[in-house]
């Protein structure tokens, strides 16, 4: 990339004020032709606002946008598409029952005669695109049948079909397996080679370092750093993002596994759609260890956690907690027995969003003797003291314990759940996606708390879609694939091997 290449995108002095928040504060953001430019920052740093302004979804209060040397006025996505800007959203905008071809053509369908969809033209156009960018896709496949990686590829082809030269990818790897991520990166490099420009929004620093040429870091609505990828490292980016030094690696001593805390035997269960989700899961979880479960999402991890926590019924098998059969126990009884559960969907199941921090801090414990008198009258003073202790011990950033959970940032919401579940010194901690969508600073904190819980003797079962998280936290790694545990591996297992196991390969090799 020569320094003199003209700028593909030049956003100058962009300012956008939302009620109560300055989302973009005089942001300067420029992208050169033919580069992969990473835009990083924590949740709420203003990345999405900036990109939505570029794509015409939000109008800036002030500032100027220059595309290919011309000052432009983008009033909506239509203008942006006209200027060759395309956006691949984090959540795909696809219609599952349509074919790949129909999805790609949607809104720009080629027609013959009066108004007939022209299949052959569509096919030819897609074949053209897929050939020139090396994006293999079957235009006749039903979109809903494709794996996530290919759905994303279809999104990219859709954007290309509309003539995009500048592609904005919003957290594109969030839903991908390691293999799919690798394939995506190959595609991105090919796209750049054929002259496209890519803006890559991410908070995964490893990927940013691997794929990008330059990096813009945002924090609290401002640009805090322009970096050249090959001259920087993870620590520098993280420090800029968070505004202080961050410990990226989990600092932990070797595990001291004790007796078996939870014994799971041949457990089976169905998903919400009544298809078998667990097909005979067995493992032992010991006190003083973190057992991580790696796997591509949707392979039964969520159902496993729910069955263990008592919120989903097992169809077979047994769960034994310290010689007590808890297979059919409900969530409340299990909690009393010392099982704490951090559910994966914090906004949907972990918190009552309209409740204050204080109220959320006793969710599920509102009838315990600590917080109620004869399971009837709430002990308000005890609840307030407990909530204030949690806020202090777990570093929940809030002006008061009376703030509604809805008004906290994602990281602080997660800390409320973590605090609630860990605050009662559980024997077994079930942590599902404990740091999903959480800022780096909070991730660091939550990781330290999980390790602390282990060191205090608790048995921790961790499910995470982030392979890095599983590898750095776990003392043993169980890989789940299609409702079964295909292998249990040591934590230093190479990523490639885990990735292979997660997608159904190498299981036999591992067992042998």
């Amino acid at each position, binding site marked *: 990339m020569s320094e003199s290449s003209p700028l593909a995108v030049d956003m100058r002095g962009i300012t956008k004020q939302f*009620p109560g928040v300055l989302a973009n504060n005089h942001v300067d953001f420029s992208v050169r032709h033919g580069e992969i430019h990473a835009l990083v920052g924590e949740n709420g740093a203003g990345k999405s606002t900036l990109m939505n302004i570029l794509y015409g979804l*939000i109008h800036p209060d002030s500032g100027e946008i220059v595309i290919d040397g011309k000052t432009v006025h983008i009033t909506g996505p239509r203008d942006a598409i006209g200027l060759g800007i395309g956006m691949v959203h984090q959540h795909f905008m696809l219609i599952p029952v349509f074919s790949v071809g129909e999805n790609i053509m949607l809104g720009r369908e080629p027609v013959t005669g009066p108004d007939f969809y022209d299949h052959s033209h569509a096919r030819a156009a897609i074949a053209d695109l897929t050939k020139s960018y090396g994006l293999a896709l079957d235009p006749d496949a039903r979109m809903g049948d494709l794996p996530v990686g290919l759905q994303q590829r279809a999104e990219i082809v859709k954007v290309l079909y509309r003539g995009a030269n500048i592609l904005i990818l919003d957290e594109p790897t969030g839903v991908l397996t390691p293999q799919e991520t690798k394939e995506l990166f190959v595609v991105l490099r090919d796209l750049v080679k054929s002259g496209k420009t890519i803006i890559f929004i991410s908070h995964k620093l490893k990927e940013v370092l691997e794929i990008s040429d330059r990096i813009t870091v945002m924090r609290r609505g401002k640009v805090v750093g322009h970096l050249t990828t090959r001259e920087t490292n993870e620590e520098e980016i993280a420090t800029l993002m968070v505004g202080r030094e961050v410990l990226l690696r989990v600092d932990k001593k070797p595990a001291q596994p004790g007796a078996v805390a939870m014994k799971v035997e041949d457990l089976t269960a169905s998903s919400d759609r009544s298809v078998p989700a667990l097909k005979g899961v067995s493992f032992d979880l010991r006190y003083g260890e973190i057992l991580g479960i790696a796997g591509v999402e949707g392979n039964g991890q969520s159902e496993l956690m729910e069955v263990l926590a008592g919120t989903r019924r097992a169809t077979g098998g047994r769960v034994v907690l310290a010689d007590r059969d808890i297979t059919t126990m409900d969530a409340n009884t299990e909690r009393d027995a010392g099982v704490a559960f951090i559910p994966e969907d914090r906004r949907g199941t972990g918190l*009552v969003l*309209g409740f204050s921090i204080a109220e959320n801090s*006793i*969710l599920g414990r509102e009838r315990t003797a600590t917080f109620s008198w004869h399971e009837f009258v*709430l002990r308000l003073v005890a609840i307030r003291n407990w909530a204030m202790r949690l806020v202090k011990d777990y570093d929940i950033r809030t002006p008061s314990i*009376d703030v*509604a959970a809805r*008004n906290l940032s994602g990281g602080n919401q997660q800390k409320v759940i973590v605090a609630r579940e860990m605050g009662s010194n559980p024997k077994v901690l079930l942590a599902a996606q404990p740091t999903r969508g959480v800022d780096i600073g909070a991730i660091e904190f939550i990781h330290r708390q999980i390790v602390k819980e282990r060191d205090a003797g608790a048995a921790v079962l961790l499910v995470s879609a982030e392979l890095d998280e599983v590898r750095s936290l776990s003392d043993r790694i169980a890989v789940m694939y299609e409702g079964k545990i295909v292998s249990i591996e040591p934590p230093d297992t190479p990523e490639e091997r885990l990735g292979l196991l997660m997608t159904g390969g190498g299981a036999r090799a591992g067992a042998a």
Partner: protein
Amino acid sequence: MPPIARRLAGGLAMPLGSVVLAFVIGAVIVAVTGGNPLDAYSGLLCGGLGIACSQGENPALQVSTTIVYVIPLITTGVAVALPFRAGLFNIGAEGQLLAGMMACTAIGVKFSDLPSPILLPMVLLGGMAAGAVWAGVPGILKATVGAHEVVTTIMLNYVAQWLLRYLIIGGPLQLAPGTSKSLTIGPGAWLARVLPNDNSLVIFGLPAGVFRVHTGLLLALVAAAAFAFLLWRTSLGYEIRAVGQSQRAARYAGVSVARTIIVTMLIAGAFAGLAGAIQIAGVDHNLTDIYFSDTTGFDAIAVALLGLGSAVGIVLAAILFGALHAGGSVMQADAGISGSLVFVLQALILFSIAANFIGQIRRLIPGLGRPAALPPEMPPAAPMMTEAAVPPVEP
């Protein structure tokens, strides 16, 4: 402004705005149809609150009449507001109220010889039990087979209305063939009046017997206080609110959603049933055909909404609706404006409350008129476990 004042102002803006808006539009309607809005409203004010009476009405009597209307509105308002907190819409307060009336009358007639210390608690508890059954059935159906409570409670309203008709026209409680009223309950089941029921005594310039205000007022206020206590100070109230705001989160935390729904409806029905029992024991002392077209249980929905589901709000809203009800006839007599305007005003108040739901709908569908990706922000601190808005209304 200090945060507490700002929050209070923000909380009151919606209901007060709705009422003011309704009165402004009502004034326009009166003016357009050839009346004088000032006369109309001074009539309402006199009839409802006994203030500014110009044509010789007795203010004390007007206040007494209003309070008689307010009593059942408070209790049924609570019966609607409590399920609201659990995310349930109890449209059946009317049926539950009638069930309470019928049970109260049946017991009061059957055991008419018992002394007051035994019979009065019996009729009140009997009314509560009947109301609880009437609301418990929809609760159980909702919790077990998922039948929507709006449908089942409405249907049970009809059952109660026709049961009432049967009981006093040809049924076992009928006073005499050809009448459409029931036998009178025993004196032991009567709730005492606030002023002695003695026409030889002259109070506020009138015989004391004309002031019908009765001690059911205390029971209604106790019911409102019990409602607030239950909701904010008990584990059950906590669970009711948790279920109302997020069933999934409540379930994950180990709260039995089915049990909470059933218990909520039972308690709500008991409140409505109590309203019915108080009405019979305190005012009528028998069932009459005027309750064929009673709307207290429906007005209660408006009271609960306007009162933002809080105990104090419900009492205030009940006073407003009771005053409107009582004031209508004075307005008609004094200003010559049809008492039906009162119903127009009630409807307008409801309408402008409903208009406030737009904010709620907007929040559910992001991207409609406001930026989709609004970053989180810190609000002013709000006191814990104090009255907040009911779920469907923005604070």
